[in-house]
């Protein structure tokens, strides 16, 4: 456990100091951290899923608070919680099916085939209830059960009356413990795999969207967009790309460099020239920071301006987003911090303006104030299409997608913490 705590602390530190950039890297590292948390977590015999959920949630709370602006952290925490619930459910149903099967085999001798059909749902419902009780059992009871014969074995022992059979059942139970953990880790591995390969999955769809001799506009730099454009290029599509530089961080410059290195015809423009150029553009393709439950997008600053220009000229505005960017929260949620104000030194040189920031003169309040927000919010009506690793979706469909990935119980991870604070 101590090494997990050290890992958690290190990651917390990185998040707090804003040392991890980009939602993909954050998402991947969060998932990896939670995987090691799960694998190191000792699970009790009963209520394993509950113990795992508590452990993940406790760490998830810390992670979310460490950097509330990076929504990918919360997303992954919720995804992992969802995975635990799903795996537990599927194992329980599998166990119930097994139980059913054995009861059926037991009953086969007593009852006729007709009663069989009626009996099964009744029995299975009882078993589910037992299983549910099983998972909800407090640990104190579990201590009592240590010496006693297995809970599930009790009704069975009355029917078959074999002590050796009860033992074999508890063995089976241990293996089930390991199986749950194993399954969860498998599923988390899949999640990590998904996060790493989301670029490729999105890029595969490029040919369907980018056509010959089109002009594509993008803003700032996004790895997803780069891969997407290059995938189209590899499929022998010839098109031109306009890159808005993305002040004040000018990541568009880097993107332009990369695109040229891959042999794409690229034009670099200032952010303010977007409106002038938009009439020549066939499609706007941009990356995002997060996609909210209502289909709104949190994206690098300047994006709303591009979206408005595209809307005005009826140019399709396409947002690329890996599934880890889907956030189950709504933008009006007070817990969602929509923006991060970075250092003004990205905008102007402190030395040159130091005389404007001299608080010694005047009435002591600075006349110059420099604001450097990182993100913009693009409302859902400005977005034409989302392309995720599962395909293209309408903004109004986002809530449905989110329901697939998250369970409703986990939406409040953060709020609970805030209330506790």
């Amino acid at each position, binding site marked *: 456990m101590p090494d997990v705590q050290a890992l958690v602390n290190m990651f917390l530190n990185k998040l707090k*100091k804003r040392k991890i950039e980009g939602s993909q890297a954050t998402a991947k590292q969060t998932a990896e951290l939670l995987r090691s948390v799960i694998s190191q977590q000792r699970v009790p015999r009963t209520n394993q899923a509950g113990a795992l959920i508590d452990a993940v949630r406790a760490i998830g709370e810390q992670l979310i608070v460490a950097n509330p602006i990076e929504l990918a952290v919360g997303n992954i925490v919720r995804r992992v919680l969802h995975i635990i619930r799903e795996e537990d459910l599927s194992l329980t149903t599998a166990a119930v099916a097994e139980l059913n099967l054995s009861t059926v085999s037991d009953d086969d001798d007593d009852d006729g085939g007709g009663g069989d059909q009626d009996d099964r749902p009744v029995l299975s419902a009882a078993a589910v209830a037992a299983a549910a009780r099983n998972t909800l059992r407090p640990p104190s009871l579990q201590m009592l059960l240590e010496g006693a014969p297995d809970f599930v074995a009790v009704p069975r022992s009355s029917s078959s009356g074999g002590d050796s059979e009860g033992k074999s059942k508890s063995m089976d139970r241990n293996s089930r413990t390991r199986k749950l953990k194993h399954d969860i880790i498998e599923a988390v591995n899949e999640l990590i795999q998904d996060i790493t390969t989301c670029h490729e999955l999105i890029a595969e769809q490029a040919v369907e969207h980018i056509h010959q001799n089109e002009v594509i506009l993008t803003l700032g730099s996004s790895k997803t967009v780069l891969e997407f454009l290059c995938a189209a290029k590899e499929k022998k599509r010839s098109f031109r790309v306009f890159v808005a530089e993305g002040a004040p961080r000018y990541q568009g410059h880097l993107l332009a460099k990369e695109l040229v290195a891959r042999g794409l015809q690229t034009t670099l423009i200032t952010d303010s020239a977007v409106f002038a150029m938009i009439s020549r553009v066939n499609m706007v393709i941009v990356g995002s920071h997060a996609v909210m439950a209502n289909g709104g997008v949190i994206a690098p600053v300047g994006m709303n301006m591009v979206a408005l220009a595209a809307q005005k000229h009826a140019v399709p505005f396409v947002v690329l987003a890996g599934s880890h960017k889907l956030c189950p929260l709504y933008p009006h949620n007070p817990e969602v911090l929509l923006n991060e104000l970075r250092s003004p030194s990205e905008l102007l040189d*402190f030395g040159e303006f130091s005389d404007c920031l001299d608080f*010694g003169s005047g009435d002591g309040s600075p006349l110059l104030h420099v604001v450097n927000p990182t993100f913009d919010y693009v409302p859902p009506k400005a977005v034409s299409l989302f392309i995720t690793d599962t395909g293209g979706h309408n903004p109004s469909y986002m809530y449905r997608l989110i329901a697939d990935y998250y369970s409703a119980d986990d939406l409040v991870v953060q709020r609970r913490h805030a209330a506790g604070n």
Partner: protein
Amino acid sequence: MGAQKKGSSRVSEDAEELARNPLQAILLADSFATKFRPITLERPKVLLPLVNVPMIDYTLAWLESAGVEEVFIFCCAHSRQVMDYLESSGWHKQPNFTVAMIESNNSISAGDALRLIYERNVIHGDFVLVSGDTVSNMSLTHAVKEHKERRKKDNNAVMTMVIKKSKPSPVIHQSRLGTDELFMAIDPDTNQLLCYEERGEHPRGAISLENSLLADNPSISLHNDKQDCYIDICSQEVLSLFTDNFDYQHLRRHFVKGLLVDDIMGYKIFTHEIHSSYAARIDNYRSYDTISKDIIQRWTYPFVPDVRFSANCTTKLEREGMYKAPEIQQSRSAHIGPFTVIGKGTRIGDDSRITHSVIGEGCTIGSNVSIVGSYIWNNVTIEDGCELRHAIVCDGVIIKAAATLEPGVVLSFKVVIGREFVVPAYSKVSLFQQPTAQDSDEELEYADSSSGAIDPSIADAGNKLNGDIVSESSQMQDWSTSQLGPGGAGFIWSACDGGCEEEWRHSVAPIPTDKLAKALLAIEEDLEIVKVSDSALTPSGELEPGSDDDDSDNMDDSNVDTVDFEKEAEATFLRAAQDNIAVDDLILEMNSLRLSYNKSAGDCTGALFYPMMKLALESPHNTAVELQKNVASVVSKWHKLFEVLAKEVDDQIELIMKFEEMCLESTKEFAPIFSQILYLLYEREIIGEEAILRWDDERKDADESDRVFVKQSEKFIQWLREADEEED
């Protein structure tokens, strides 16, 4: 050459060693100064809250994020408090970041501290030297790499100093951080520091560069717009240098200047300028104010209130740069303005207005309170109707109803301000009496600060204050006759040691406009002086050696000197005339004066002739004839003086010309009798025949106006020439 090789091989070994060694840092958790008194009597400076986070947390968080792995915290005054704080905070538990304490009870300066650390032998390579009041977000990797590369090439490059561009105020000659304007001479190619001068040491605003500096370096750039960040990347040698030179106390004043002046060992200091990142040190109250505002404006990102970089609580950034912690009870009618930070659990009453301020945790602010530009620490109670402008209010202070704090007030811990009391501007209030032994001498200040730290009575009182409130309430009785209004508790410290009129420079309050206006006037006067002395140096221009700047400087000097010399000579002569001093003595005196000013005999005669003639003019006379008689008597009295001083023909010509000038300008009375006096001088053998003739020759080609006196004495000259010929 052999030695050089040996040195270089050692360097490469060192480099390997350095690669293995983790980056170390020395953090001085004691400023060895008294600028933050009286607050620092009770709590060390590094633990004072800066935007609700202790200063040392900013420094440690920055060192941690900049890749420093081992920090040695040196503490002296209040070392117990610093250690307790570090124990309670999470800094000991950080992965890849070890914090070790070095405690001392008798160090009185940074020099002592470094000597002690050298003795402990804990530093194994290059290290970063900072003080515990540094706020920065710069990345050290680049600077350290630069330093190491320089070290490989030149073993004498012992230190890299981090600087940042920041324009000083042209009016009051101090930086925005309240420190004195700083002049630096830097080699633009190598970034080597060549000269480091603070304006405070040169009140006339002029710095002098040594000639050798200009001769040795092909180019130099002079800067007055660089701010010293007090972040130094040092090699191990720095510690041993401090040990070798046991009189080094101050890092800049002694160590840096010592190295720059000393050319025997040849140690070099380099600079590293940072552009986009932030670095500054809290040196006085003004920099406390400035850096707080920089933090609120997010120049120090990611070390800003809404990012949890230390144990600080979650704070949310709202519109207009307003930071709010949770659990704030704020009245609906209270107005909280822009750039304000409000700490956890603070209560704010009706109709209160707060702008540009920082409020700590657990404060209670009543109704109709106005707070502007103030720093209010934790658990402060401000009752209804108070007014606070640009003040610092420490923990546990109680300000009773309708009291007023004028700009620049500092209230130390647990002070109580009585009802409707007005605390005058720039006053500092503490529960402690002001220490009586005050001296403006810097060295004594060091001693003073350390004695304050170990003085048992003060330490005891401090403990008592930190202890239970019950004992304190009994203490309250003593304040019945307080200087702070009814129910007040505390002493107002009299305006500080030394520069009390300079208080406005370093306080949290903005500089009053009248002071600015005065400073502006002074500048205009300065400019006139500059015009006279015609300085060719631009503040940050580059100078090429071999240009004639040196000569022009000399010219300036001689101009000033001539005026001085003439005045001095005149005074000497008049004194001699009054006191009837013998001519021989005067000659002696004049000679020494002449030598000390490095003047020729000609200058001397000219300077003496004028007062002599004036003496004649001042004695009563009615007609030109009487005046002539006066002159004759004066000349007869002093002729020996000129005989000795004006031996050479050139000097005598000089004398005639001076006389001519006088007749034209200052003493026109002599104009009609010029020739007579000339004859008189000839007769007394002050002026020789040859001199007169040559003067005549020189004037031959001159303008008609210049020849007035030549014409007047035409007959005399004619007579001289004839006499000459006859002799032949």
